[in-house]
Each structure stands twice: as structure tokens, then as C-alpha cells.
């Protein structure tokens, strides 16, 4: 009975989402407060029923109710309880339910944390989110019902969760990622609402900013978790494959990063309004494109779910409706550019404009690389693949250019920056980065141009950021006072940019100086990589909860002194009979040692992959910094000062004078995120 209740509460959620999409919007257009007041209760009700449905599906997994087809296909009585829990979103239907739950959660969060917004605005924002929700609830109920039963022939046991997904990374990777994807629906809704009532002003940007930053922070974490999971669970030590599905998550991240920055300009200076709105629409559309790519079966990858053409068509229709309707609205309502606000050629506005141009270029490159093969294939013009070399050649130069821009941009000021002053500021970063970019590659091995460029870019960002922090925090009352005087959003930016520097240095060093060797080894053999000796000691069998493993023991030493012992495994899962490689990894801040057991090549010989991966942890550490920066930025005091925001009157763009004052205030930083 419980699964039917789950189904029923999903239908009830839809019955609440439909009025949510219509009633408050109608109220806002006709000026009837009584109708607008429906927005919050409907948002809350929708969340409650989606949560009940999600709880009931979780319950079905926990009690091994194999009469539910989705449970039977993705669980097994032998599965440990925590994997039963994460199996709820282990495949298409359940992960879509998670998506809908998170969407309902964001809607509820907007309803709760926007008490200070004008009621017209909040009614429209919640209505737009209701529309998105109607689309996804319909998709869930019509094409992907997670509660479908197998009756009367209930299987005695389930087909098990794909062993690749039986892992801690999967428990947290999808929820984080979806928090990001779906979170961009909030800024999308704000943009649409602003277009509907024609109030595209600094207040609108201020309201949208924290939501965008949070979604962006979650997406950064989600992508990093996915990369980390691929590194240790797919078994072979790569951390980014330019797989179309990875790209699908990178696209909204790049657009979202641009959005975080252009929102800053719109809020602070009241310019780039039309562009910011367009970017908000684009970011959410790219999230939907990601959903389409993953769930329609057009791609084949670890992430892609089983293909079903109706799902693809439904999502494509959803994507088309979103893009066409929002762009039509944009075409009619986007403000005619008549801003009288001026800025000089080296101003912060221009740096952020260039940031947006480069991020869009990077996004387009990834988009072309992802869609080109799909389109050619669809047109029947042959099958081809675009791999790593394409992205190395195109994405890396754009990333380096962005790094150069970031270092200089951090010193720039609103309205006008003196060119000579700026170049004097950049002398130190230039000198230190040049030294680092020459020394680090030489110290790690040979000099390589890409390593030079990457190290230079990363050092440039880091040195400039620290220099800016040092100069801004100088105070007659002492350093500590100066540091405390800086706003949280400024520290958010510092963390975000340092995160980029960390990720960039990690990616540069590991891809240029990582060592990888495939060797054939019999017990007793010693192989040497870097300055380390890997000894294959022995191999034995081990029984796990739901698998049997061949476990090898590999002792690693440096010149006779033991460093660590690793136990890479080859696992055979009992239900699906799949072979899985479980790598042995010794992680460290400066290097990872990685041993993966390949196949048995003769009676006593095994193939082994030995790897030395310098600075690989920095790639993910950087993402943690970026996310932390995002969360810190939204904790900024100015988002909580009530009297700053008029609650009923529309906020106006500050007068040019006020902006001048704003720009001249020295510590008026650019909060939020990184590029």
C-alpha cells in the first residue's frame, strides 16, 4: 500500500504545483493580494507531499519491497543499509524524484527566506518555480514512475545496485550536484519575474545574488565530488575525462560563474542588466540541457541512464518550452539599454565584462565539443568522438587567460582604474609568479610550456589575491583590526579565487608530472617509479559483504625505508557478477600513490597500474575553497540588514552620485565566488 501512497502524494504535489504556477502569478498581474497570498502555502504543501513520496520510496528500499520495480532493479537484500539508502537515487526514476524534491525544497526556501521581498515579486518568483515543478512532476508521473509495481510475480530478490555506485561518493555526489543544477532555477525564476513586471534593477540583482552563489557553490562541490569518485572508483586514476556527461555539469558551472560575476556588476553599478538576465536564463537552460543529455539516452557513459525515447522527447520539449518562452519574454521585455552610467576602460566593470566573455568562450568550446558529435550522428554524417586533445588545446588557453585577468582584476576599481597605478600593483605578482613558474616545473622534473603557463596563472592569482588582502587590511589600529574590517563577501571572493588557483596548480602539476606505469608483476617483483619501489608481496582472497575480492599486498618503500602498504582489489560482485577494480590509494596533500590491480595475465602474473600523482588533491581542495567562499559570501551582513531594503516600494537604481560614493569607498569588494 505504501508505494501507492507515494504515487498518490506525487499526484497531490502536482495538484498543488499547478495552482502555484497559475494563481499567484494571476494575482500579481491583476493586483489582487488575496491570490498572491496563496504562493507560500502552496509552495509549502508541494514540498510536504514530494517529501512524503521520497520518504515512502526510501522506505520501500529499506524494507526490501521488491514488488516495486525500481527497488527490484536497483537493490538487493544483501546490500548494506546505507547503499540501500543511496540506491534511492541510483538510477533514473529515483534520481528524478530527488531532483523534484530538491526543486520543491528550493521553492520552499525562497518562500521562507524572502519575507522582505515585495509580495508581487515573491508571488511571481514562486509561480515560475511552480511552472518548472509542474514540468518535472509531469515528467516523473508520465514517463518515470518510481512506484511502479511488478505484480503478481514479485521477484524474490533484487537485481542489485550497480557495483560502481556502491560507494560513499555516490551517496553525496548526486544530491550536491542537483542542489546546484536545480538551485539555478531560483535565479531563473527571479529573472523571469523581473521581466514580467519590468523591474530589472539593482534590487533584483541583490535578491538574486545569494541564491545564485549558493547554487553555484553546491554545483562546484558536486562536480568535485564526481571527479573524486571517478578517480578512486572507476579504478584507473583519471580525474576528468571530458566525458559528455561531465561536460553537461561543467556547462552550467561556467555559465553560473559568469552569472555570479555579472550579477555583482548589475547590483553594484546597475549596468549589464539585459546581459545578466540572459545569462540567468542561459544558466538554467544549460542545467536542463544537462538533464536531457543524461536522461535521454543520446549519450553512452557511466552516468547515462537506460534509454527510453519518450523520456528524451519529453525533456527536449521541456527544454524547448523553457528556452523559447523565456527568450520570447526577454525579447519583448528586456530593458532598452539607456543607462547613463559610465565606466573607464580599465575599470572593474570592464574586467568583469572580459571575465564574462572568456567564460562564455570556454562554455561555447565545451558545448561545441559535447554537441558536435551528437548532431553529426543524428544527421547520419558519421560517428566521431572528440576527446581530451580537443579540450587541452582549446580550454587550457582560455583558462590561462582567465587567470591573468583575475589577478589584475582583483585590484581594479569600479568606474575607473588608473592604468599606471594598476601596472605598478602588478609588478610583485608578475615577479613572484615568473619565478614560481620557472622553479616549480624545474623542481618537479623537466621544463614544459604548459606547466609554465599553468603554474604562472595559478601563482599570479594567488599572489595578487594575497597582496590585495594585505593592502586592504592595513590599518592604523593594527593588522588584526584591518583584517576584521573586511566584509565576509570580500573573504568569500578571496577564498573563491584562491580555490581557482589551487585547482589550477593541481590540474597543471598532476597532468604534466604525474607518472603512470602499467607493469606485469608476479609476487616478489619490484617496480620503481619516481623515487619509490613498489613490491608486489602477495595476493589472496577476501570475502566482502556482497562480493569476493582478490586482494594484493603492495609494499612501497623509498631506498629501503617503508612508506606505506596498499591493498588493491579485484572484486566480483555476487548478484550482477561484475568485476570491479578497487584501487589502493595512499592519499596525501602533496602526492597520491595509486596502485590498481588489472587482470591476471598468467597463473601467477598480474597486470598492475602504478601511479604517482603529485598535487592531485589540490584539484578538489580548490573546489572546497570555492564552495566555502560562496557560502561565506552569502553570510555577508548586508544580506541581513533589514532597513537597507524597502519592502513595498520598488528599489531604484542608485543615483550616479550615490554610486560614485560607493565606488570610492575603498573596501567595496566584489563578493561571491570565483571565475
Amino acid at each position, binding site marked *: 500500500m505504501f508505494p501507492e501512497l507515494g504515487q498518490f502524494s506525487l499526484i497531490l504535489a502536482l495538484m498543488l504545483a499547478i495552482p502555484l504556477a497559475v494563481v499567484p502569478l494571476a494575482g500579481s498581474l491583476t493586483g489582487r493580494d488575496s491570490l498572491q497570498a496563496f504562493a507560500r502555502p502552496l509552495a509549502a504543501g508541494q514540498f510536504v507531499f514530494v517529501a512524503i513520496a521520497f520518504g515512502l520510496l526510501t522506505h520501500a528500499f529499506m524494507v526490501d519491497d521488491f514488488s516495486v520495480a525500481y527497488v527490484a532493479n536497483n537493490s538487493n537484500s544483501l546490500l548494506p543499509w546505507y547503499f540501500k539508502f543511496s540506491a534511492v537515487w541510483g538510477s533514473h526514476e529515483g534520481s528524478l524524484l530527488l531532483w523534484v524534491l530538491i526543486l520543491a525544497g528550493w521553492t520552499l526556501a525562497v518562500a521562507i527566506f524572502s519575507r522582505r521581498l515585495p509580495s508581487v515579486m515573491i508571488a511571481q518568483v514562486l509561480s515560475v518555480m511552480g511552472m518548472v515543478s509542474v514540468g518535472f512532476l509531469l515528467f516523473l508521473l508520465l514517463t518515470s514512475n518510481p512506484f511502479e509495481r511488478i505484480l503478481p510475480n514479485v521477484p524474490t530478490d533484487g537485481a542489485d545496485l550497480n557495483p560502481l555506485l556502491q560507494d560513499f561518493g555516490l551517496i553525496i555526489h548526486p544530491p550536491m550536484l542537483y542542489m546546484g543544477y536545480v538551485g539555478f532555477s531560483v535565479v531563473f525564476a527571479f529573472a523571469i519575474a523581473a521581466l514580467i513586471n519590468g523591474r530589472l534593477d539593482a534590487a533584483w540583482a541583490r535578491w538574486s545574488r545569494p541564491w545564485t552563489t549558493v547554487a553555484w557553490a553546491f554545483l562546484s562541490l558536486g562536480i568535485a565530488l564526481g571527479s573524486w569518485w571517478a578517480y578512486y572508483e572507476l579504478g584507473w586514476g583519471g580525474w576528468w575525462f571530458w566525458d559528455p556527461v561531465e561536460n553537461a555539469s561543467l556547462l552550467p558551472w561556467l555559465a553560473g560563474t559568469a552569472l555570479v560575476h555579472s550579477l555583482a556588476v548589475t547590483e553594484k553599478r546597475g549596468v549589464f542588466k539585459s546581459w545578466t538576465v540572459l545569462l540567468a536564463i542561459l544558466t538554467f537552460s544549460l542545467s536542463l540541457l544537462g538533464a536531457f543529455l543524461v536522461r535521454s539516452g543520446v549519450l553512452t557513459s557511466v552516468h547515462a541512464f537506460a534509454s527510453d525515447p519518450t523520456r528524451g522527447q519529453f525533456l527536449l520539449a521541456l527544454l524547448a518550452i523553457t528556452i523559447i518562452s523565456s527568450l520570447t519574454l526577454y525579447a519583448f521585455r528586456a530593458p532598452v539599454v539607456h543607462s547613463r552610467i559610465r565606466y573607464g576602460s580599465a575599470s572593474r566593470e570592464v574586467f568583469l565584462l572580459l571575465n564574462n566573455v572568456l567564460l562564455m568562450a570556454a562554455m561555447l568550446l565545451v558545448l561545441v565539443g559535447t554537441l558536435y558529435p551528437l548532431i553529426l550522428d543524428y544527421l547520419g554524417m558519421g560517428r566521431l568522438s572528440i576527446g581530451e586533445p580537443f579540450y587541452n588545446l582549446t580550454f587550457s588557453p582560455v583558462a590561462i587567460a582567465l587567470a591573468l585577468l583575475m589577478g589584475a582584476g582583483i585590484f581594479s576599481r569600479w568606474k575607473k582604474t588608473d592604468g599606471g597605478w594598476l601596472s605598478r600593483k602588478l609588478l610583485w605578482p608578475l615577479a613572484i609568479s615568473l619565478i614560481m613558474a620557472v622553479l616549480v616545473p624545474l623542481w618537479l622534473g623537466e621544463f614544459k610550456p604548459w606547466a609554465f603557463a599553468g603554474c604562472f596563472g595559478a601563482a599570479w592569482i594567488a599572489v595578487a589575491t594575497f597582496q590585495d588582502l594585505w593592502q586592504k587590511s592595513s590599518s592604523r589600529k593594527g593588522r588584526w583590526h584591518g583584517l576584521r574590517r573586511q566584509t565576509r563577501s570580500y573573504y568569500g571572493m578571496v577564498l573563491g579565487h584562491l580555490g581557482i588557483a589551487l585547482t589550477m596548480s593541481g590540474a597543471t602539476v598532476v597532468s604534466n608530472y604525474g607518472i603512470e606505469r*602499467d607493469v606485469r608483476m608476479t609476487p616478489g617483483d619490484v617496480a620503481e617509479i619516481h623515487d619509490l619501489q613498489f613490491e608486489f608481496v602477495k595476493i589472496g582472497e577476501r570475502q566482502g559483504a556482497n562480493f569476493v575480492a582478490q586482494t594484493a599486498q603492495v609494499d612501497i618503500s623509498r631506498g629501503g625505508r617503508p612508506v606505506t602498504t596498499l591493498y588493491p582489489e579485484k572484486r566480483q560482485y555476487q548478484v550482477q557478477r561484475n568485476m570491479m577494480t578497487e584501487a589502493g590509494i595512499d592519499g596525501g596533500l602533496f602526492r597520491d600513490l595509486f596502485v590498481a590491480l588489472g587482470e591476471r595475465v598468467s597463473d601467477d602474473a598480474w597486470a598492475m597500474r602504478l601511479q604517482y600523482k603529485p598535487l592531485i588533491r589540490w584539484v578538489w581542495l580548490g573546489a572546497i575553497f570555492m564552495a566555502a567562499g560562496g557560502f561565506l559570501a552569502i553570510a555577508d551582513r548586508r544580506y541581513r540588514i533589514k532597513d537597507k531594503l524597502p519592502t513595498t516600494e520598488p528599489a531604484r537604481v542608485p543615483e550616479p552620485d550615490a554610486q560614485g560614493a560607493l565606488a570610492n569607498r575603498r573596501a567595496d569588494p566584489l563578493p561571491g565566488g570565483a571565475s
Partner: protein
Amino acid sequence: MHPIRKKRLTIVLFLLVGLGIAVGLATYALRQNISLFYDPSQIAAGDAPQDVRIRAGGMVEENSVKRDPESLRVRFRVTDFESSVVMEYTGILPDLFAEGQGVVATGRMGPDGVFVADEVLAKHDENYMPPEVKDSLEKAAARAEKNTAQSIPEY
């Protein structure tokens, strides 16, 4: 020029330059770095270019996997049940590589007609077949059917 128009012009120019760089880089990189897929019949017919990175795939023939006893070099035949091609690979094969399963490899054709792979991908679950391989098997099967249909009157 009016300062605002000038500003707008700079913005538009920036956007165009950015877009131009992106498109230029992309087309250049695309020309260099795409790898087209060839099935064993096309390779046997000599359609596949030498010394260009291409992809090839099909089913691994039964009893065709031969290992070098000293190193990790392995040779196997890949077929679309019409023609077959010998592939050589040095390294660790994926977990799901097995005889009778579908694989897709990336590499180059050598002058001796051996496909030297630098990457071998196998299907990653029971139901999945690489779409290229599925396509090529269907085509080969269709050709075979046509041949039988044509040959019926002779018997």
C-alpha cells in the same frame, strides 16, 4: 563618437573578438582532434587511413586473445561477423573486456594492417552495447541477409 555609443561599440567588439577566438580555436582543434569510427568491414576494404587517430570496434572473437608472456602486450581479433581486424594493445584491459563482448578502441592503423590501440573501452554493464558496434553489426547482418536473399534462386 558619442561616449555611450563608443562604449557599446567596445562591448560588441569584445564579444565578437571573444566569440571569434572561441570559434577559431574550436574549428582548428576540431580539425586536428576528431577521430572517426570505422568498423572491421571498412578496415578490411582499406577505407581506414593509416597513421591517423581513428576508432574501431566490434565483437572480440572467441579464442582470439593472445598475450605476450613477457609484457602486457595483447593481441585479439575484432569482428563484425563479416570481416575482422587484428588489434594490438599494451596495458591493462578494462574489467569488462572479454571474448564475445563488444569493444571500441582508439588508435592507429599500422602498415601491416594491425590496429594499434592506445585505449580500449568495453561495455560497462550487461545491457550496454557500444552504439557504434551495434550499428555496424546491424549493417553487416543486413548485408549478409541481402546476399542470402540474392543467392536463393541459384539453389
